[in-house]
């Protein structure tokens, strides 16, 4: 037991021992050619599975043609070595680059949108590359294939250099994957997997993140491909661009645990070695497909999370952590929060600061769903430094207007200006970078991420430096903890967000939006489903932040809260504004009462409601 806890306390110990053991093996037994070959093929599979895991595990976009990158790397090395005599080992980085270029080109076409075209294009990419390799005789020698020169070293140790090269690439690939997972980039990828629309609303440039992830997933397989070509010394299109290779990658990552760091490596060893055993003791190559297919079905149905997460869950059950409850007292009693600027403020382009323009200006915006006009030529202004309310009956188009302003949907007509900049054609994340934040009517936190990870996922700007910055340590994480403390959720930093109650999620979502330092926050029913003392606390938080310069646009059905908190109040009905002004004026406006209660409310139809409204 003490051995186990020694490993549990030092999570780096096991990987280091593992790497050292594998590195020492060929030193101790240099002439074990067969076991070395089995192991180095497992390393090759692990390199591919670790790469696959970046796009398909972290970001959740499944690639079924990932073996194309090893093939491209192999062909790059093969062609260069035959045409210009370049040593394949030296060509390895070029193999990686060719793979990255192919991934970027394919990704730029299919990853701009959400959905399932990606999986199809990955198969298409594999088969199309095979077609090119077969038919571009002049370059690839067609179906006849390419024969590479033999390695110069002694045949007795022929596999040791390959063994070492693949081992180094595998460990480098894992380190790369670990680094990605620690950065904002990696957090953003998981955010995309969990809820792509929400990720875009907190400033994550989903298109760029996905394309970069696909490119990152291709690099190490491409390099390994070049080494593999040298190892094989013969390449042909059917062998290099083989669907079965892709199946093994998927199987390895799934068996080990997709989305985890070491899962793909563990899975690669399991799959590679059992495939070898099956070939030796089973029916040979004929039954391979059947075996892999059956294994894939069984794993998806009965072990969808993979081995590593199952073992981790078992470990946690054996060593339970005490459960903590909401620090509601803390939430209610925490003092006034001082907004702290980000550590690295974004360089502001010099230009006249326009204090005279309103913070948000919506002009003549229209949105139709088929025949239904949800937002009809709406005009709305949020004055600088205000807490503006947007109220109106259900179905009057308030949430649709929110979506148009934040970019979740695109307006059919009209224009939206934020802080003087026209934003209605910008993607949601760019609006976020300008300082527009929102919360959702039903909270949309990333459920499998911890609360702290949720807090560091937002991208306050679109710079690459911000993307590759460490998300777990440093001052950003410190700021995240402060904000969590401010909303009374600090003790839940390491809890998965999906385990929180609805009210707790609302608090975290508000804190999350504040991480991007918004100038304007759109709150969609902040008080819905929250207990009354917390509503008062929320109002106080909004007022505090507003005093420090943050503007608010609030959709809310809790009329007393609105009338007390907001000024001005804008009333929406049937897709356009019917009244606006200070709360006192609006609440007595007969047009508003008509809209809420129907035309004959004054005939005594529902005096009680009218009383509440007054």
């Amino acid at each position, binding site marked *: 037991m003490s051995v186990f806890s020694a490993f549990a306390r030092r999570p780096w110990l096991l990987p280091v021992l593992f790497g050292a053991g594998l590195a020492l093996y060929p030193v101790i037994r240099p002439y074990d050619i067969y076991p070395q070959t089995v192991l180095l093929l497992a390393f090759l599979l692990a390199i591919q599975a670790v790469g696959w895991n970046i796009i*398909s595990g972290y970001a*959740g*976009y*499944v690639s*079924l043609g990932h073996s194309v990158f090893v093939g491209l790397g192999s062909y790059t090395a093969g062609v260069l070595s035959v045409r210009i005599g370049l040593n394949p080992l030296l060509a390895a980085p070029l193999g990686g680059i060719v793979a990255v270029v192919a991934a970027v080109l394919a990704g730029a*076409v*299919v990853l*701009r*949108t*959400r*959905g*399932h*075209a990606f*999986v*199809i*294009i990955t*198969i*298409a990419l594999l*088969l*199309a590359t095979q*077609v*090119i390799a*077969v*038919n571009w005789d002049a370059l690839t020698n067609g179906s006849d294939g390419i024969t590479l020169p033999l390695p110069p070293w002694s045949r007795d140790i022929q596999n040791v250099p390959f063994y070492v090269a693949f081992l180094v690439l595998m460990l480098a690939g894992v380190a790369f994957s670990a680094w990605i997972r620690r950065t904002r980039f990696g957090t953003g990828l998981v955010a995309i997997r969990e809820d792509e*629309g929400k990720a875009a609303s907190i400033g994550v440039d989903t298109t760029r993140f996905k394309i970069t992830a696909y490119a990152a997933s291709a690099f190490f397989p491409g390099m390994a491909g070049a080494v593999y070509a040298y190892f094989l010394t013969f390449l042909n299109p059917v062998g290099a661009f083989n*669907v079965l290779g892709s*199946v093994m990658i*998927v199987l390895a990552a*799934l068996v080990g645990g997709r989305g985890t760091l070491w899962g793909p490596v563990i899975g690669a060893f399991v799959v590679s070695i059992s495939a070898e055993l099956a070939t030796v003791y089973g*029916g040979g190559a*004929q*039954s*391979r*497909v*059947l*075996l*892999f*297919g*059956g*294994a*894939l*079905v069984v*794993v*998806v*149905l009965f072990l*969808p999370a993979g081995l590593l997460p199952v073992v981790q869950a078992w470990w946690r059950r054996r060593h339970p952590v005490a459960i903590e409850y909401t620090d509601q007292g803390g939430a209610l009693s925490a003092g006034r929060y001082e907004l702290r600027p980000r550590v690295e403020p974004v360089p502001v382009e010099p230009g006249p600061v326009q204090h005279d323009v309103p913070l948000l200006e919506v002009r003549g915006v229209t949105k139709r769903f088929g025949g239904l006009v949800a937002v009809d030529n709406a005009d709305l202004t949020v004055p600088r430094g205000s807490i503006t309310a947007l109220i109106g009956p259900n179905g009057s188009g308030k*949430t649709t207007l*929110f*979506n148009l302003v934040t970019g*979740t*949907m695109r307006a059919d007509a009209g224009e939206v200006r934020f802080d003087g900049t026209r934003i209605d054609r910008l993607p949601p994340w760019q609006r976020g970078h300008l300082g527009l934040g929102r919360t*959702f*009517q*039903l909270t949309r936190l990333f459920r499998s991420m911890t609360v702290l990870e949720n807090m560091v996922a937002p991208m306050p700007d679109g710079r690459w430096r911000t993307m590759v910055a460490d998300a777990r340590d440093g001052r950003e994480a410190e700021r995240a903890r402060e904000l969590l403390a401010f909303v009374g959720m600090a003790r839940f930093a390491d809890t998965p967000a999906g385990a929180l109650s609805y009210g707790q999620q609302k608090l975290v979502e508000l804190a999350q939006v504040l991480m991007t330092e918004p100038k304007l926050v759109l709150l*969609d029913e902040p008080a819905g489903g929250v207990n009354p003392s917390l509503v008062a606390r929320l109002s106080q938080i909004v007022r505090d932040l507003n005093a420090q310069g943050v503007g608010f646009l609030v959709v809310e059905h809790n009329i007393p809260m609105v009338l007390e908190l907001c000024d001005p109040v804008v009333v929406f009905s049937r897709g356009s504004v019917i009244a606006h002004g200070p709360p006192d004026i609006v609440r007595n406006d007969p047009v508003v009462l008509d809209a809420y209660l129907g035309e004959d409310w004054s005939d005594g139809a529902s005096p009680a409601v009218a009383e509440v409204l007054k």
Partner: protein
Amino acid sequence: MTQLVQALVLGVLVGGVYALMASGLTLIFGVMHVVNVAHGAFLIMVATLTWWLWSRTGLDPILAALIMTPLMFGLGWVLHRTVLSRIRGSSVSMSVLLTFGIALVVEGVLNVTGGNVFRSATPEYFDESFVIAGMALPKPHVFGFLTAVVVLGLLHVVLTRTWTGRAIRATSQNHTGAALVGVSAASTAALAFAIGIATTGVGGSVLSVLYPFFPASHYDWISRLLGIIVLGGMGSLPGALVGALVLGLAETLTATYLGLQWSTLVFYVVIMGVLLVRPQGIFGTRLREDVAT
């Protein structure tokens, strides 16, 4: 000129057959949000069974569809009830992986039982042509096209004129809404899956005459069919028709003017071009953002 017209007509004939094969795939995606990667494998399986029937009994391969269709309907139903229903509610990518596994199992079984060899059903009309206005139209393509038109017409009638069809369309448009008005999501999904798989009964029979095939051919077929529905817009039946015609025309025109080996590549280039302009495909709609309840 005749060459061009012949290529165009042939393209439409081939496109009709593709439309038949892709219709089931897009139906399954539309209703269940399952990308059935095993669709190509089922086509090849049916083609193999048809070939076997034809070589044993001399039964016309296209007529064999009358036997294969109910068989595949039953297989689809059983497969949904026993396997696919287990992953209901999990992400689309899980369904991709699961059906990919099923495709490999089918390929493996075909490999082990029938051997990894090329086959093609060759009834006496397989190399004959109708000659109309100087154009030679291969009989298998004409028969295949006519079969496809009949089956697609039937599918249209089932989907628009029967309660079952309305339930399927309702479920494909609004899952929760359909469930709320008393459409059982589970049995509708099973039915839609079974109908979708049943179309491979016809498609595979036609395939056995039109194209030589072997167990691993299903990769080519699934990537073509998925390409068609991506091009047309996933889940859209009219989209599948248009996508299939585009593929058919791209293939025959490339084969006529550039060489057969480039036809797949040309089709992928067309897909990429369309996706650049319309990322959601020709008839596709962007996924709705579930911001409100």
